[in-house]
């Protein structure tokens, strides 16, 4: 038997040839290795988006579970697809220069084309085609003369670099096809090269490829017709098969090897292309970094740098020098320095921010007294990956930082990282179902079920929820295809804030792509790709809480003039630390609005954790995360925290690692240290373990580490059971675990925001409202919480408000502080009231309101005066009337609106000035109209409609009499009810939460005029009362009261939808009176007002009932819908 000839495949498209290729790049590379190809390339359509993934995989292929990983020679390339009819060309760079050319060529095509649709012309190819090995794939159905002429001219241009590639098509004429190709190649003087023009790694992928085609053409699979491939032949084929197909042209197979030999370029050549920071001192980068670090160290440690820290700085500097990362740190330092010079609040986090140097450079404020610095975590020396620093900026001012980056580095050297948008649960399902021709209803039933499932595999739950039979073959097919397409890239989008910055031209390193925003450009690679190639990337992120804090600092300086010991305005680093009242407040779970710890889950944890010092906050931030919860670490920690059990350390060396967290590993760093100390991992291995954990769903490589860790720990004398538990915990971190540095950075913000809330609730409230949207709670709850802390809140008014909420002087009356916060009466230092801003009113534009404020002068005297002098349109004034903002004129919203409606539709400025001069004061000769005055309850509903909140009253207060008659307990009284008693509560539904970690329970938060109540709905009850839970806006809950550590829940046993009652609020006064009278007469009590109005049986009742029902539906819609959280 003759030996099977060697072969290399270069006509390979992956699923990064969007909606064409049907296999992941990794799968293709693995298959090539499996078939023992001499080399493999990847050539996606006018893109190199997938080449890094394939490259990474090519270096590390495990053919079986136990075998040592092997590699396969791999070459990144691109399939050039022209928009001018030129046949496709496989283009593979021979060297770094060729890669630069390819990137320039694709960038030019991207620039010319629409987003996601490059427009490549043959001229680009002729210009940039040098230093590449090329293989043209002619279309044999076109005229042979034309093709030959083209081949000859390209041969003249590219010489021996050009080949003619052909693949069998199984169209019935392959004999002729190959002969034609060979003939043309000979005639043009080109070598013939074999390929199978691969679209997927295995024949089973054909249905998926058909699906992708139909999605791409936006049609159904049965309509797609000839656009689909006729057969499943475009998969990667073993060498035997390729040899058989090309048995008459063996030289075509050999040519693939020669092609491979011509390619020497590797993606590894791109790394470390960091910009040269021009330093003030003119020193080289490393020396400049050292200078800045020591300078910073002296500031951070005014009493002298302690020996241990001194040593660490030396060590870190040496590591940075070895890895050549100095310029990276200088770049980050420079960006943050710019932001600070502009007064933009910012804070770094991420693994590199975990270093002492970053503390010295003020990249992070988390110092060594707070946490250990783990050098290995900081930079992984072995992998040679760049450090990772994310910087958070105020969300409203991030743009300025981005503009600076563009200005400094220019569009040639910086662009955003890409973010690969891939098919996830709903999207995958929706598109596949559409292509299979399922009706929109089935599709939306499958994908629309709230809390059905998210990005996990589509399984039983979803199909069941949609009423589909999973055993039905159609359903099975659907589920299979959806799971097949899951994770496939759909298109590239820009990363939220990851900037790539390079020293050389960026467009010679990676192609640049247009984004939806004209001035933003992005590269074709995402974060992981950039990491793997070793390019510098800085995450410039937006964080709402930073905006809020910056505003709070501003208000504090302006209104209270609070300063630090050196007379400087307060800032993040100089907030008085470790204040007991702050921790007391947090421990009482009085944390609405406080960063991170404001969610229900966090709040229920706080009274048990009772944080007393900063590190407790670090733990608090990290512990209430899916990772620790799944790893079952929360309860042991809580028990130890509450001193119900003693921490145990299996071995003394573990005590050193886990002491701070009472023996429970909570942070990624601890997991790594355990692996090093107990499992015998090398530091770099431990880092790989961490990375594997983060991506283990994608690669499944985590199992290797499992064996290694457990084995290592056993060898070091740990019980196997303990080792397994350790691994489970580490695994639990997965995607969710926090590194300690991260938690510490966030904990700083927790403390800062809690400090403001403790001492200056007025400042805090205004700052949060002015930074909306952010956080967990709606403005209504923020306002309510501020009022409960004694802050006076004032209505929006045309003569007082500005766009933002402002502080107006007002005495603080401790008596206003609600009973539950009585401890704070002596602590709160508020001296101002919050005047709500126009930003609170729905539908107003900032520019309009600025104009209103600008022209306000001594104040507006009438609606007409406002209209004339502000130049605002009638519809804007109507919005202000809706917001009840004319009270300073003595008008309520109804009378104000009536006056507004009388104004001419056009703007005042467009009219003749003479007649409209306000001082002329033409009296309005108009017959008087008597409008019914609006009852308070209706005002409240309108307040909600326009402002999403009401300062006048709580909607539920109008129903209190009735509720009291039904023996419903006001929420505030729940603390007087003893544990285990049955109670009934009622309120507006604010939040429904079904934590991903506790699938069988739903938390509801309901609110009445006295406060909120927390409802627990167990799955069994949810099944029974689903419509009420999901649909009601106003709800009654009967259940058992449960109280533990000051956290009160009502465990629902019955849930009633009372939304219809809200209709009463919208009744006009006389109707309300009538109802009351009729009720008196009829002696009806406790039934809903609406049905009581339809007294007579039969048809005559139709109309009022209809109107009433429509009305309550309308009111219910105005009330908050209740936000759903996972």
């Amino acid at each position, binding site marked *: 038997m003759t030996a099977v000839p060697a072969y290399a495949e270069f006509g390979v498209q992956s699923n990064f040839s969007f909606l064409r290729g049907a296999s992941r790049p990794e799968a293709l590379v693995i298959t090539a290795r499996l078939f023992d190809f001499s080399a493999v390339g990847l050539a996606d359509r006018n893109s190199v988006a997938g080449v890094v993934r394939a490259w990474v995989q090519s270096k590390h292929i495990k053919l079986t579970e136990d075998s040592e990983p092997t590699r396969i020679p791999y070459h990144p390339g691109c399939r050039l697809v022209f928009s001018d009819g030129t046949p496709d060309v496989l283009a593979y760079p021979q060297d770094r220069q060729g890669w630069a050319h390819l990137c320039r060529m694709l960038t030019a095509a991207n620039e010319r084309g629409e987003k996601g649709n490059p427009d490549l012309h043959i001229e680009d190819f002729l210009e940039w085609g040098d230093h590449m090995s090329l293989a043209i794939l002619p279309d044999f159905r076109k005229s042979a003369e034309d093709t030959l002429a083209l081949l000859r001219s390209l041969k003249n241009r590219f010489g021996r670099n050009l080949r003619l590639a052909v693949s069998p098509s199984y*169209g019935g004429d392959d004999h002729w096809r190959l002969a034609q190709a060979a003939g043309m190649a000979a005639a043009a003087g080109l070598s013939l090269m074999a390929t199978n023009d691969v679209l997927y790694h295995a024949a089973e992928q054909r249905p998926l490829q*058909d699906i992708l085609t139909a999605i791409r053409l936006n049609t159904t699979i049965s309509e797609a017709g000839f656009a689909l491939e006729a057969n499943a032949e475009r998969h990667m084929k073993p060498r035997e098969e390729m040899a058989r197909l090309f048995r008459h042209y063996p030289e075509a197979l050999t040519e693939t090897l020669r092609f491979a030999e011509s390619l020497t370029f590797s993606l590894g050549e791109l790394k470390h292309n960091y910009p040269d920071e021009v330093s003030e001192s003119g020193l080289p980068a490393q020396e400049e970094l050292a200078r800045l670090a020591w300078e910073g160290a002296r500031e951070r440690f005014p009493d002298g740098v302690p020996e241990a820290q001194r040593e660490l700085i030396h060590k870190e500097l040496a590591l940075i020098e070895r890895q050549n990362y100095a310029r990276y740190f200088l770049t980050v330092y420079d960006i943050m320095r710019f932001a600070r010079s502009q007064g933009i609040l910012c804070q770094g986090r991420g693994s590199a921010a975990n270093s002492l140097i970053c503390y010295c450079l003020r990249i992070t404020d988390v110092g060594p007294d707070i946490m250990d610095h783990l050098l290995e975590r900081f930079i992984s020396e072995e992998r040679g990956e760049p450090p990772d620093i994310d910087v958070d900026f105020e969300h409203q001012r991030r743009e300025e930082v981005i503009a600076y980056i563009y200005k400094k580095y220019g569009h040639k050297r910086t662009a955003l990282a890409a973010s690969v948008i891939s098919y996830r649960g709903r999207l995958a399902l929706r598109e596949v179902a559409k292509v299979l021709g399922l009706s929109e*209803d089935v599709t939306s039933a499958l994908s629309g079920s709230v809390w059905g499932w998210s990005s996990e595999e589509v399984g039983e739950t979803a199909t069941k929820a949609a009423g589909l039979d999973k055993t039905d073959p159609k359903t099975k097919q659907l589920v299979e295809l959806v799971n097949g397409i899951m994770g496939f890239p759909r298109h590239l989008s820009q990363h939220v804030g990851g900037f790539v910055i390079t020293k050389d031209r960026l467009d010679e390193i990676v192609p640049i792509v247009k984004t939806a925003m004209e001035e933003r450009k992005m590269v074709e690679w995402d974060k992981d790709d950039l990491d793997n190639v070793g390019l510098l990337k800085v995450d410039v992120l937006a964080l709402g809480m930073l905006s809020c804090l910056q505003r709070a600092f501003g208000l504090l300086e302006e209104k209270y003039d609070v300063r630090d010991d050196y007379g400087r305005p307060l800032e993040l680093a100089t907030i008085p630390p470790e204040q007991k009242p702050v921790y007391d407040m947090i421990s009482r779970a009085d944390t609405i609005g406080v960063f991170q710890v404001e969610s229900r889950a966090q709040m229920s944890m706080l009274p048990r954790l009772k944080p007393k010092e900063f590190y407790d906050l670090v733990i608090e931030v990290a512990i209430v995360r899916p990772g620790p919860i799944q790893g079952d670490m929360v309860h042991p920690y809580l028990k130890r925290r509450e001193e119900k059990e003693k921490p145990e350390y299996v071995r003394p060396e573990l005590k050193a690692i886990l002491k701070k967290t009472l023996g429970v590993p909570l942070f990624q760093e601890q997991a790594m240290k355990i692996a090093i100390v107990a499992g015998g991992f090398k530091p770099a291995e431990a880092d790989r373990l961490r990375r594997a954990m983060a991506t283990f769903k994608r690669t499944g490589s985590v199992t290797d580490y499992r064996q290694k860790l457990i084995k290592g720990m056993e060898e070091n004398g740990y019980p196997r059971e303990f080792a397994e538990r350790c691994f489970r915990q580490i695994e639990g971190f997965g995607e969710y675990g926090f590194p300690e540095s991260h938690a510490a950075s966030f904990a700083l913000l927790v403390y800062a925001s809690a400090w403001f809330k403790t001492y200056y609730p007025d400042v805090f409230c205004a700052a949060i409202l002015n930074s909306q949207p952010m956080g967990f709670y709606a403005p209504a709850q923020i306002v309510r919480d501020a009022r409960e802390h004694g802050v006076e809140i004032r209505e929006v008014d045309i003569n007082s408000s500005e766009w933002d909420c402002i502080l107006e002087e007002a005495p603080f009356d401790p008596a206003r502080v609600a009973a539950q916060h009585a401890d704070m009466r002596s602590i709160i230092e508020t001296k101002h009231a919050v005047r709500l801003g126009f930003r609170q009113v729905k539908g107003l534009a900032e520019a309009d309101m600025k104009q209103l404020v600008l022209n306000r002068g001594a104040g507006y005297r009438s609606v007409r005066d406002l209209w004339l002098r502000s130049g605002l349109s009638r519809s804007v004034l109507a919005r202000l009337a809706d917001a009840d903002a004319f009270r300073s004129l003595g008008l309520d919203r109804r009378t104000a609106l009536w006056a507004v409606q009388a104004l001419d539709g056009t703007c005042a400025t467009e009219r003749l000035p003479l007649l409209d001069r306000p001082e002329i004061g033409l009296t309005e000769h*108009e017959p008087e109209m008597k*409008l019914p005055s609006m009852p308070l309850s209706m005002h409240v509903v309108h307040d909600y409609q326009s402002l999403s909140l009401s300062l006048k009253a709580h909607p539920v207060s109008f129903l209190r009499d009735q509720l009291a008659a039904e023996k419903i307990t006001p929420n505030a009284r729940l603390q007087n009810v003893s544990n285990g008693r049955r109670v009934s509560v009622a309120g507006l539904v604010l939040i429904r939460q079904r934590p991903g970690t506790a699938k069988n329970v739903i938390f509801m938060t309901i609110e009445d005029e006295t406060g909120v109540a927390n409802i627990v709905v167990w799955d069994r009850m949810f099944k029974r009362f689903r419509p009420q839970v999901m649909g009601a806006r106003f709800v009654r809950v009967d259940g058992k009261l449960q109280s533990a550590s000051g956290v009160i829940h009502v465990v629902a046993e019955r849930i009633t939808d009372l939304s219809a009652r809200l209709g009463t609020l919208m009744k006009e006064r006389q109707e309300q009176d009538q109802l009351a009278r009729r009720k008196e007469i009829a002696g009806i009590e406790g039934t809903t007002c609406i049905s009581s109005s339809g007294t007579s049986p039969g048809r005559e009742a139709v109309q009022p009932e209809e109107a009433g029902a429509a009305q309550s539906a309308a009111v219910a819609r105005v009330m908050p819908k209740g936000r759903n959280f996972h």
Partner: protein
Amino acid sequence: MGRNESAPADFPPLVISQRENNALRIAALNEQAELLGLKPGMGIADARAMYPGIEVMEADPDADRQLLESLADWCDRFTPLVALDGRDGLFLDISGCSHLFGGEDAMLAEIIRRLTQQGFDIRAALASTPGMAWASARHSHSRDRNVPAGQEEQTLAPMPLAALRLEEKTRTGLERVGLRYVGALIDAPRAPLARRFGRMLVTRLDQALGVVEEAISPRLPVSPLSAERQLAEPIGTTEEIERLILILARTLKPDLERRGEGARRLLLSLFRVDGVVARIVVGTSRPLREPTTIAKLLYERLAALEGSLDPGYGFDMVRLSIAVAAPFEMEQTDLAEGTSIAEEEFSLLADRIRARLGEEAVLVPALAESHLPERRARFVSSGKEIARPTRTSQPMAGGRPIRLLEKPEPVEASAEVPEGPPLSFRWRRALYRVARAEGPERIAPEWWREEKPGQTRDYFRVEDMDGRRYWLYREGLYGEQTAPRWFLHGFFP
């Protein structure tokens, strides 16, 4: 008006969904769904979150419209002046008609009775102005109300503003200042209202009250052309009808000629003495104007209907309308009286057959896009416009036979593995030696169609020693199957 979904009580809750601003909302719902507390306008996602089990159907506004139109047709019996009102209402101008039905109240009762019998849940009202009738029908307490002249104001006053057919914007504007019932407007000074909400508000009010006249705009005559004959003496026999058809068709011819058009669809309306209208529709494959041909077509249809067409006490009016007309292509007869005539005759024949036996009685083949040879063509009704396949034609240049066997016939063949052409094959007991062969053309099954898709086929074009050419295929790939089967599928000329 609403379709009554009162099927058996265990009929599941059903809602009709409609896309509004990119969100699916409930457009209508049945009683069971209503009992659950669902409301029109609610988001489908919200409704599903509450009741995952509800059944949702997409709204079909075209079908609703058609239904409404057919109801309007049906109402022709009461008055010729019927107008459509929005998506779910009809105006009937019954001035001068009510006496035919025993007075207004009796007429109203009759309309309601008959529509209710047909399964509709209807609300109707009768008043001296369209506006008043509209308000009463939709906002009155009762389902059948005759508002006596002079009582308009009193009736309207307690009704909500919606009763005035106001624009949404005007209505909410009024409601926001507390004016929520018509009564509030009747009492109010007119000038401030008109100033703020425009003249239309006042007009609507006046229209309802009868202060200003309002005419309904009856549905335009659907047919571009029609001819009718009132008969003093009702007719009942088919022969009489046929004779009348011919007369009417002759009347229509000059009009068609003047317009340069021919009929593509004909509508024959037979008005029975007692008000029932029988309508007969006939489609044609090409524009027609020749009276005898038209008549012939209708005769076929009448013949097919015989028995089901009940003349009762006879028809007192017959109307023939051209429901759809199309440009008539004048063709010069060629001297040899060649193909065009044959084609014309064929289509006339097809029309007549279809008229008698139904749309699906005559089918013609049309091209379809499929890689599978047997799916390349499908049969469609000859009356339909045949849409040509839009996308690229067959991707493969290497010809296929024009004639395929109805069913591929198994043959015994010997071939080279794994995918060589047959060397010889035996078909219907005769042995054929293959002289030349080309292939394979590999065609995989359409996995999305059947539950158990067939196997991949390898097609070969082969020529036997006598120069006859065949299209053969092997079913299944080597490796997948030990002994693949061979079939003969067609012949090349």
